[in-house]
């Protein structure tokens, strides 16, 4: 941590607010909220793209990301699961690299040469895209295997944050426990949607492979963690800006069983489950609850039907919420006052009785000015106090 006056001044507001409200460990605070109890303040989770992490570290004078997290009062630490020890991923002359599923990926740069330059790893080629039959798909030689991972260090990796922090087993963005997402990577997004409408047999054979993989993989992760995982997070985008991507009937037909199976495994080990999905998924929420979901993550406020006040009113008794901060308009384009107002609105709407973890609805993107990042965290501490 840099101690020059300028950094101390920038950190002063958050330090002062935290000193006033905090009376328990990060983990205690988080777990109380998940159990629908009111801790000292609303727990804070933090999703930032690496470029914003770096900018915030520079602004506050933090030498490492962990220092930044500690300073900001982030109550959660991520565990990315076991170590990959399978065959090395094939690299191709065009710069693409195979991933766990044999999907070829490439790094895409956006905002080239501007202040908001950044990169994402995107699908370049879907290996099942041109297959026409169940037999061809079954014979695909690159189905992922839980044997490709070494689980020995999971416990130690999680335990390093205990007892201070709440540990979320998040997996990696590209390999997070899901059903539709790997199907889209393998088949291509458009073909996956066509399959859902026209080729149930193809959907089922791919889905069954994916569910079988994650079922066994997660069993092994949870067993190896030996009680050191506090929250299990899965993520599968089912929402678009103006509604679910697929109908409730289709979700029930293809995905409900696997969704519940994933939750049941975590619950066997006593681990609550958080589910990430972007977009408007309101129509699916009663089914999520029925499947035993503990925490719904994202609450993208600019999507239709995802107003946190309304969701808390309708589902707050049965479901915790994580998210609710707008990265589509308010953070990148609004003023610090707008950010403050947004935080206050969500806190007023959702913090009563616990069950709310404040966070952005996705990564804070690189187009967000640092003034809005600081306004966000200051407001978290100002309005989050019970």
């Amino acid at each position, binding site marked *: 941590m840099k101690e020059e006056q300028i950094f101390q001044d920038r950190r002063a507001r958050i330090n002062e607010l935290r000193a006033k409200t905090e009376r328990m460990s990060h983990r205690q605070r988080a777990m109380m909220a998940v159990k629908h109890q009111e801790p000292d303040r609303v727990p804070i989770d933090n999703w930032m793209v690496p470029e914003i992490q770096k900018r915030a570290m520079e602004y506050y004078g933090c030498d490492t990301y962990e220092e930044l997290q500690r300073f900001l009062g982030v109550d959660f630490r991520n565990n990315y699961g076991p170590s990959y020890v399978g065959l090395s991923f094939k690299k191709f002359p065009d710069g693409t690299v195979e991933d766990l599923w044999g999907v070829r990926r490439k790094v895409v740069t956006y*905002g*080239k040469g501007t202040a908001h330059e950044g990169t994402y790893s995107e*699908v370049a080629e879907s290996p099942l895209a041109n297959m026409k039959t169940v037999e061809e798909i079954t014979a695909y030689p690159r189905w992922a295997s839980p044997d490709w991972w070494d689980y020995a260090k999971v416990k130690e990796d999680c335990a390093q944050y205990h007892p201070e922090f709440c540990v979320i087993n998040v997996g990696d963005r590209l390999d997070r426990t899901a059903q539709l997402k790997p199907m889209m990577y393998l088949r291509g997004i458009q073909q996956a*949607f066509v399959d859902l409408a026209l080729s149930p047999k193809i959907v089922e054979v791919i889905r069954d492979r994916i569910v079988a993989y994650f079922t066994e993989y997660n069993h092994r992760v949870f067993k190896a963690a030996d009680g050191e995982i506090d929250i299990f997070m899965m993520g599968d985008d089912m929402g678009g*800006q103006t509604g679910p991507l697929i109908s409730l009937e289709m979700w029930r037909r293809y995905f409900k069983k696997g969704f519940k199976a994933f939750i049941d495994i975590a619950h066997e080990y006593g681990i609550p489950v958080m589910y990430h999905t972007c977009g408007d998924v309101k129509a699916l929420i009663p089914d999520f609850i029925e499947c035993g979901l503990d925490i719904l993550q994202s609450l993208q406020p600019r999507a239709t039907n995802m107003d946190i006040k309304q969701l808390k009113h309708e589902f707050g008794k049965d479901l915790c919420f994580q998210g609710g901060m707008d990265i589509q308009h308010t953070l990148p384009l609004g003023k610090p006052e707008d950010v403050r107002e947004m935080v206050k609105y969500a806190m007023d709407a959702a913090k009563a009785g616990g069950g709310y973890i404040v966070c952005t609805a996705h990564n804070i993107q690189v187009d967000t000015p640092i003034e809005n990042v600081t306004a966000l965290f200051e407001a978290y501490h100002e309005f989050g106090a019970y």
Partner: protein
Amino acid sequence: MDTLKRLEEAVVRGNMDEVKDLTQAALDANLAPLDILDQGMIKGLEVVGQRFECQQIFIPEMLLSAMAMKEGLSLLKPQLEKGDAPQLGKVVIGTVEGDVHDIGKNIVSMMLTGAGFQVVDLGFDVPAQKFLDTVKQENADILALSCLFTPTRLAMKDVIQALQEANLRDKIKVLIGGAPIDQKFCDLIGADGYAPDAPGGVQKARAWLGK
């Protein structure tokens, strides 16, 4: 039920084979190609838009409708081009630089094609210069830009700026869409219009060209 009503319903159901058969049947019955387009395809598209908006249908169903329209149009197109009817406009479409998300753009592209527009689809991760060059080369009436996430939407502004610098801004309508796009953002960057979904985008394009 008459053929055009059945065609409309086949578009709504996204039944590609039926749309092709009914388009052919309508042509065989000597119905005017423009009537087949307006009273079959476009009527179907309107229903798809309404149903999507009230969450009665979702992406898979809308995608099938778009694919079916495009197929039907492939039969209709030679006839449309033959007649004396004025040609519908030309649209250049693509996902902006840095963004590889194209499912929404593809649906719009197919629906525009299905609605009778000439569509030049540049794919995704398209640099501003490429849009500019194509607009010039094709003498396009409309430029349609798509994106999924927020940092890449700023590239839409770069494209509009490139049009301005090339003195082309007044000669073309710019339509934008994608998850993080709303009217506010459209006003902010000076685009001509935004639509929240694919059928809405097609309606807007038609309205601009006086259809």
